[in-house]
């Protein structure tokens, strides 16, 4: 296992799929679908393999030695006239307790999305090429432990997403696609700027690959110092160059850096004032893309905050954690209120995503191991549950070409199996015990109550609101009498069951026995919490 480059394999498997797809005639739709489904299922298999070989006791986060499945090759080494200094960019892939869960989630959601892509009929070849490219970007983002590499993968996702929404989406697809692209790019260019600033603020010694010999200058025989992009090395305060832009603690530059980075991720989460792209993108995107968007792309925001915003600017994150928690609560309540007002099924779920991602922010803002574990679990659970919800919306939309909640009624009798699956998804989404989301929300509250009591109490109101809109929707759509025009609706097909039942199984399994997934991440989150606590005294000194 140690010798196989598993992470490269799981990341670049879709590239193989793309090459094969490129040579399949465009009329051969079955083969095209088969390739993508094959690739994504293989990714699930590799992800499970990674999971089974993952050692839970290693923390990762800021300790480069405790990452697992590490692949590291020098990519760009610029040691020149000291113009830009020596720059070391590595092809550095690795997993810790935070990213392994995300990889697992990405593999599952991609496979579900691939199955949900059967409803695509126009230009199938182009669709799957874009879908596989998106898949590379998603996997790579979670595996990359070099900031430059991370940024490359992060941006690679934008273009395929633009085309997937813009070509295969609904009526206002062009508007939604460009809005998504511009919003996300605006966020990520600030990440780009901070990335460059961080690289100029850090210097480390490097070893000759495969040895423990430090690279030295051939003339002076002194160790060469490199500006590194390695994420764990960048978190090391001893690597910071005195007098550089991000040196020191609690400086104005570091506040600016944190804001810029946080903005990039807040757009992705999405945090409330920056969330307006999400309902548009979700409503216009085809089912499979909504699944991937909600299932994986939103998680990159939370992942980025945990790994980068907290990791690079810990003392700022501590200083501003109350505001982070506040925005988390606003997300929860505002998202839930907006969801209540929707009559479009898909928009309703989009806003419920906004609400649920608020728990992620709240969990992160708690800054303790329980809360952050809760946030990571919430990301995983929300990924699975929304993937399921969007597939369920798709099922109805494929049959009726409408998503108006009020147009339906009495579907419980008409489509009993569909009803059962919707009940599971809804109950999980509203946080009922024995379903997955209950566990993660409980963890979030457990953590955040220790830090922010008042805000946590307000946040619990969000749970009631969530229950309110999900139960109302259930009542409107499934009870009462079936309108005349929907008398001929058929129940879920075999293909839909194949994509939905595994998700339902995960939802229930995670609700009853979440141990295996929690074990994956707690050690890492404790490591992150310890890392933050080492800066807590700085925070105390910064207070007036």
């Amino acid at each position: 296992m140690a010798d196989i480059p598993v992470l490269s394999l799981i990341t670049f498997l879709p590239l193989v799929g793309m090459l094969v797809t490129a040579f399949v005639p465009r009329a051969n739709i079955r083969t095209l679908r088969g390739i993508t489904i094959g690739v994504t299922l293989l990714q699930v298999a590799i992800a499970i393999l990674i999971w089974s070989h993952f050692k839970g006791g290693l923390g990762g986060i800021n300790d480069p030695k405790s990452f697992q499945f590490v692949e590291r090759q020098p990519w760009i080494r610029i040691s020149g006239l000291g113009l830009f200094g020596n720059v070391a960019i590595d092809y550095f892939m690795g997993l810790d307790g935070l990213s392994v869960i995300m990889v697992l989630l990405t593999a599952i959601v991609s496979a579900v999305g691939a199955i949900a892509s059967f409803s695509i009929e126009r230009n199938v070849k182009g669709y799957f090429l874009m879908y596989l490219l998106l898949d590379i970007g998603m996997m790579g983002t979670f595996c990359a432990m070099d900031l430059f590499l991370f940024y490359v993968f992060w941006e690679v996702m934008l273009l395929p997403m633009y085309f997937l929404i813009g070509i295969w989406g609904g009526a206002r697809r062009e508007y939604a696609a460009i809005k998504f692209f511009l919003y996300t790019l605006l966020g990520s260019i600030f990440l780009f700027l901070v990335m460059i600033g961080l690289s100029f603020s850090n210097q480390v010694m490097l070893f000759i690959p495969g040895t423990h010999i430090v690279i030295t200058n051939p003339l002076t025989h002194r160790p060469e110092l490199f500006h590194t992009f390695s994420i764990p090395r960048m978190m090391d305060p001893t690597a910071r160059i005195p007098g550089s832009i991000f040196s020191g603690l609690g400086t104005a530059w570091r506040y600016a850096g944190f804001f810029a980075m946080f903005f990039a991720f807040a757009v992705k989460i999405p945090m409330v004032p920056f969330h307006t792209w999400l309902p548009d993108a979700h409503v216009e995107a085809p089912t499979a893309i909504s699944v991937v968007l909600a299932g994986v792309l939103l998680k990159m925001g939370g992942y980025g905050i945990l790994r980068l915003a907290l990791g690079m600017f810990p003392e700022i994150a501590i200083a501003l954690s109350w505001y982070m928690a506040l925005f988390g609560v606003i997300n929860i309540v505002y998202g839930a209120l907006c969801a209540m007002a929707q009559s479009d099924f898909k928009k309703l779920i989009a806003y419920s995503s906004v609400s649920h991602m608020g728990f992620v922010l709240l969990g992160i803002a708690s800054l303790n191991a329980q809360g952050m574990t809760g946030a990571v679990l919430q990301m995983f659970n929300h990924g699975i549950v929304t993937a399921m919800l969007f597939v369920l919306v798709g099922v109805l939309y494929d049959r009726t070409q409408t998503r108006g909640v009020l147009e339906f009624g009495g579907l419980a009798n008409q489509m009993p199996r569909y009803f059962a699956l919707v009940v599971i998804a809804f109950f999980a989404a509203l946080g009922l015990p024995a379903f997955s989301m209950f566990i993660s929300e409980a963890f979030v509250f457990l953590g955040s109550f220790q830090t922010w009591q008042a805000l946590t109490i307000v946040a619990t109101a969000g749970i009631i609101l969530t229950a309110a809109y999900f139960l109302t929707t259930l009542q409107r759509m499934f009870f009462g009498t079936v309108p005349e025009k929907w008398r001929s609706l058929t129940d879920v097909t075999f293909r839909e069951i194949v994509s939905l039942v595994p998700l339902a199984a995960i939802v229930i399994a995670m609700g009853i026995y979440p141990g295996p997934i929690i074990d994956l991440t707690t050690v890492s989150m404790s490591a992150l919490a310890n890392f933050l606590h080492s800066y807590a005294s700085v925070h105390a000194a910064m207070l007036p």
Partner: protein
Amino acid sequence: MNPQLDTLSKIAHAVQGYSAISLNNFVPELVLGIGFLAAILLDAITRRARSKQFAAFFAMAVLAVAAVFSILQWHAFDPLHAREWARSGSLVFPYSQLLFGPMLGTNSIVNGYAMIAVDNFTVFFKVLIAIGAILTLAISLTSRALQAEPQRIGEYSSLILGLSIGMFLMPASTDLVMMYLSLELTSIAGYILAGFHRKTEHGAEAALKYILFGALSSGLMIYGFSLFYGLTGTTNIRAISEIFRINPLTHSGTNLPIIWAAVILSLVGMGYKISAFPFHFWTPDVYEGAPVPITGLLSVASKAAGFGLLIRFLFFVLPPSGLSHTPIVPWPMVLAIGAFVTMTFGNIAALLQSNVRRMLAYSSIAHSGYMLAALATGTLQGVVAVLIYLAVYLFMQLGAFFAVLLIENSIGSEKVEDYRGLMLRAPMVCSALVIFLVSLTGIPVTAGFIGKFYLVSALVAPNSLHGVPLLWLAIALIVNSVLSLYYYLRVAAAMFLKRPLVAAALEELSIELPKPPRIRYSIPAMVLLFVFVIPVIALGLFFQPLVDLTSGVINAFLR
């Protein structure tokens, strides 16, 4: 003795050491010159249209030979040793050889007073320009508009060779007179080529505007040069800088406003060549009216040569601090403001265009602004970043123009609305165009991203000249790239997301049109398209060679 006169007499003494042997440093330009004459002769003696075609291939071969001879002038460069030189503050040029001047090592003080310098900086530009010109000739062979007049291909090819001589000399010039001459040589060939479609209204307008603006700005520039001569008594840029250094009287008191005027007026001519605001007015009309390949050449090679001249002028005449001494005129600040206005104006104007070629013209103004921003740092990082960007820009911009040309060949339009639904008819060309546009925006994994990465790095890097990094300019640059995404994407959206207006209207009436036929492109055209696509992707993935190459260029600035 007056130190100024002393220096001047030393220079005069050194220049007496003229040697015909130094002509061997002039081989690339001689090759081009002989090729230029041969191309004219060839054109005069051939009658048949088919043999005229041969002229284009002949010109490509001449350029390739000139490029090879240029590469031979490259001096293997060991960055580690250069760093030692930089530390020791040596005045010696480690590697550069100077034409029409004493050879290396004879006299370290007067070394470098010549008409042109043959250093790695020059070689880099020469090779870049040669590649640009070769690709332009290759593109021209696929242009339907040019092929409609086969009798004039010979004339066209020889003019490109003439243009190339001028562009070869521009970044090499180390004398104000030589700078002016090379700039004019480039411009004159450029005027004729811009108006090559003389029978069309746009073509005539393009040539006229180009001439008028060119004449005005080069007139202002030579006036600026004359002020430099009046102040120092020499036209050699290194001598000027030396005299400024040893004789503070030349740039104090009443002389200071004169120097300001001299710098600003000189920048006019160079700003015109790189189409910086407010000397850009010719750009949209010339880019629209000239033959597409010439538009590409002007926006890539001619701009590169202009930047070469500008860098040479600014860093040699008025070196910023950190290189040798403080600049007597704070040109970095002037450039910073100019860069900001240029990029913002270019992008906002590009937003309003409905013609793709005009849009690319305005966007090329914006790209000049990005590069000026890096120069405004006044550091060698900035220079290296500009060189990297120019190399990357060559492929993406010329590639974009080539794709536009191929589309124009088949649908006869350059309007964004006529691009609608084109993806179904020409998927390869449309995909390639999207790659170029994405690269121009600066999104990974394209070369444009690497270019932006280095430009922004130069702005964010610790900067001794400004005290703090030019962060405001870095933010302006990246926000501008988001702005540019909007209009680049409009082209992509038209091709991929929309359907032709007619088809959409008929569909409303539920009339099905037959599927539009695929556009067939010749195999050479497709191969050429890949010649552009491959570097754009490959440099985005592995840019180490490019960075190493450009770092080797800076030996020209060490002294």
